[in-house]
Structures are given as C-alpha cells and as structure tokens.
C-alpha cells in the first residue's frame, strides 16, 4: 500500500536554532501514530511543518504521494506559490491545543467556512456535510451556538469536526486535551478513538500516555528534534530500549 505520509530528512530551524534535525517518518492509510516526548523536543513543530504552517529548510514531505510546500527547479529548492500551498494545507487537517475556533461564527459556521471558501461547495451542501460531522462528534444539538457559549471539550469537538469535514488525507492532533479540565478530557478522546476505529489516518501528539498506548499502531519518542525511539506501543511502554525513554515514561507515571 502507498504511504499517506512520507517524510524524509526533515530539517527545520528558527533562526540559528535547529529544532528538527533530520526526521524520517512514513504512515500507511488507517495508521494511528502517537508522538511523545519532553517539552521542547519538536513535536508541535513537526506537526506544523506537515500542515505547512511553518517553513522548513531541508527534507521532503509527501502527502498521498504529493510533494508539499516546495519543489526543485534547476536543482534549486524553491517554495511553491502561496495558492499551491493553501491547497497543500487542505490535504491535512489540524486540531490545535487552544481549539482556535472563530469566535464570530457559530459551530456550524466554523465548520462550513472551509467547505465553502476552500472547497467551493454551495451553501446547502456545505451545511449538510458540516451537520454530518457535528453529529459525529456529538455537537449537532449545539450547532447554532457561538464558541463562547460552549465548554472547552465542546469547542474542541467542533474544532475537530471543522478539520475533518474537509476530508483530509491525514488528521493531526496537537495535545488537543491539554487545555481542558480533567473531566472534559474523555469526551474528546472518545471522539478521536471513534475516528481511529473508523480508519482515519492520524498523527497525534499527546501527553495522555494511557490513550497513546491504547489508540496507536505505532509510538514515536522524540528527543531534541530527532526520533529517538519508535515502535509498537506495547514494546515501547513495557520494554523501552533507551534510558531516556525509560526515564520519560517513569516521569509520566505510565505503568
């Protein structure tokens, strides 16, 4: 089977500070990969590069076989025009730690915006698609509510619906439960689990070790901008090969 995501030799710097130092990663359709690692190891930056929210200075990212963000012309690496990049971004969906819902739009409006203005759907069609996904994340009752009228967990579920309604090849989740009160975490994790069961290809950064263990087909441990260890979740959590991973798991109290 072809890869949905194929990253080779990815490098990214913020000014002189290199934060991704050569990452290779491939994901098959339906795979769920969790990224764990300590703060500042580059997890968010990796997801942001895949969603083209950041420039990167080296390496290639392919989504469903398509090279994104850059092309090579006359042996030189050049950035694609912004219009192309906007299309590239819509290949992946991203859910953010802070939800980032548009406060001046209802839940429904948040989900239909991309459908209408990127996909060019007619209003009725966009509403139908949006309603389907809001239903799926358990938010159809509140589709006409504004973000300020929703709890954090509800906002995050709408944000997930907004991303996934675009029918992306790959969903990216960046610590989507970190900003939530503990009692709201499960409603969001359940939605993600449900999407995983449905065969959605997902790459998620999480500090919920138990969830990573149970949802993932593969776990990646990042350290200082590289993948330090990767493998089957059972192997990784029960028999960590490196001292660093063992320490990290010890600190996050996974038994």
């Amino acid at each position, binding site marked *: 089977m072809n890869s949905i995501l194929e990253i080779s030799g990815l490098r990214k710097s913020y000014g002189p500070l290199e934060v991704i130092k050569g990452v290779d990663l491939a994901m098959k359709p339906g795979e769920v990969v969790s990224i764990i690692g300590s703060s500042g190891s580059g997890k968010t930056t990796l997801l942001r590069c895949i*969603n*083209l*929210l950041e420039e990167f200075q080296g390496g290639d990212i392919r989504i469903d076989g398509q090279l994104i963000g850059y092309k090579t012309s006359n042996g030189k690496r050049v950035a694609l025009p*912004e*219009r192309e990049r*906007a*299309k590239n*971004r*819509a290949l*992946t*969906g*991203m859910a*953010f730690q*802070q939800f*980032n*819902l*548009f*406060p*001046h739009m209802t839940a429904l409006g948040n989900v239909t*915006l*991309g459908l209408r*203005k*990127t*996909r060019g759907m007619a209003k009725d069609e966009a509403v139908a698609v949006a309603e389907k996904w809001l239903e799926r994340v358990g938010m159809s009752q509140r589709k006409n509510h*504004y973000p*300020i009228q929703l709890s954090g967990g509800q906002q995050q579920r709408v*944000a997930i619906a*907004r*991303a996934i309604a*675009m029918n992306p090849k790959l969903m990216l989740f960046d610590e989507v439960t970190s900003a939530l009160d503990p009692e709201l975490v499960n409603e969001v994790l359940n939605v993600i689990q449900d999407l995983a069961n449905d065969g959605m290809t997902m790459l998620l950064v999480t500090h919920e070790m138990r969830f990573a263990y149970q949802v993932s087909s593969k776990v990646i441990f990042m350290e200082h901008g590289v993948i330090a260890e990767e493998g089957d979740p059972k192997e990784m959590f029960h028999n960590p090969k490196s001292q660093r991973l063992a320490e990290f798991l010890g600190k996050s109290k996974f038994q």
Partner: protein
Amino acid sequence: MDLSAFFVELANVWPRLLQGSIATVTVSFQAIAYGSVFGSLLGLMIFYGRMPARICGWIYLDFIRGTPVLVLMLASFYIVPLAGLGLSATGAGILALSAFCSAHVAEVFRGGLAAVPPGQAEAAKSVGLTFPKILFYVLLPQVLRQALPAWINAAVEIVKASSLLAVISVPELLLTTQQIVSRNFMNAEFYLVCGLIYFAINLTLSKFGKLVEKRLAF
C-alpha cells in the same frame, strides 16, 4: 442676558446655523470616509508589508501625528495649489482632515490586527484558505468588532477638528457662528449654541457607535 432678544435673534439666524451644521457634518463625513479607507490600507501595509513599505508607513504616521491639525490645514490650503492642483478651500480642508483621520485609523486598525490571536489565522490557513479570504472572513470581522470604539473616537476627533476649517474661510459651523456674533454681539449665547450643536453631533455619533457595537457583539 436678555432671553427674549436671544430667541428673536435665534429665530432669525437658525437657517444659517443649520447650514453651517450641515457643512460641518458633510465635511467631517467625507474626511472620515476617505480617512478610514486610506487608514485601513495603511494599517494593513504597516502590519503585513515588507520592511521598506512599513518604514514609509511609519514615517507618514509619525509625521501626521506630530503635526498640529491646524498646520496640516494651512499647509494643504497654501502648499497643495503650488503643485498645480486646483483645490477649493473645502477640498483642502477635507484633505487635511482625511490625512489626520487616516493616521488615527491606521493605528487603530494595526492594533486591532495585532490583538487577534495568531491561532485564528493559523486555523483558517489550516483549512486551506488563502490570505485574502483569511483577512476577509476571519480577521476583519474581529478587528472591526474590537476597533469600533476607538474608530468612533477618531470620528469624534474629526468632527471637532473640522472647526479648524474656519481659518481657511470654509463656512462651517464655527465660522458661521463667528459671522453671526460679529453682527449681533451675542458672543456668550451663540458660542454656547455652537458648542451644543457640536455636542449633539458627537453624541449622535457615539450613540450610533454603541448601537453598532451591540449588533456586532458575539
């Protein structure tokens, strides 16, 4: 103060006061309209533009804000015609007020853009929107909402500053009042009336602002 004499005089001159008020409102309205359009573009340029464009924008802003409006007014009245542009006194006044207004609006607009959390544009980018669409559907509604009170303040400033058109002989409210009192010598009474009219115009403006603000609330 002879009240009955005042009312007799008021009955005589009110059409002129009305005309003056209309001139004030018309001139202010035009200056606010031009100034807001130009100021918004300037604000965008300063926020998103490349370095040289930004620097030009800041120089313009600092220059306009650092110059008294009266001087802007006289400059536009005496200097612009030297460049061979035919400009009436009213035109010169509107030009100076528009420049003044644009500086205020640019600053308000830039501040409004800076106040929208970066996650908003990122979330919009993430669903594949291009920059103009992000600006139009996601950022501007939020900027408008948050900048409205400051924008109304700027508009009020323009109405007040329009009284400076009197020095270049544009018969707006203040000059009309001056002409009236120079004939009837009822200085206290008619400057009070003049003040009340400015107050009424600006009160209407801010009430209108509050109304729109409520409408835009989310």
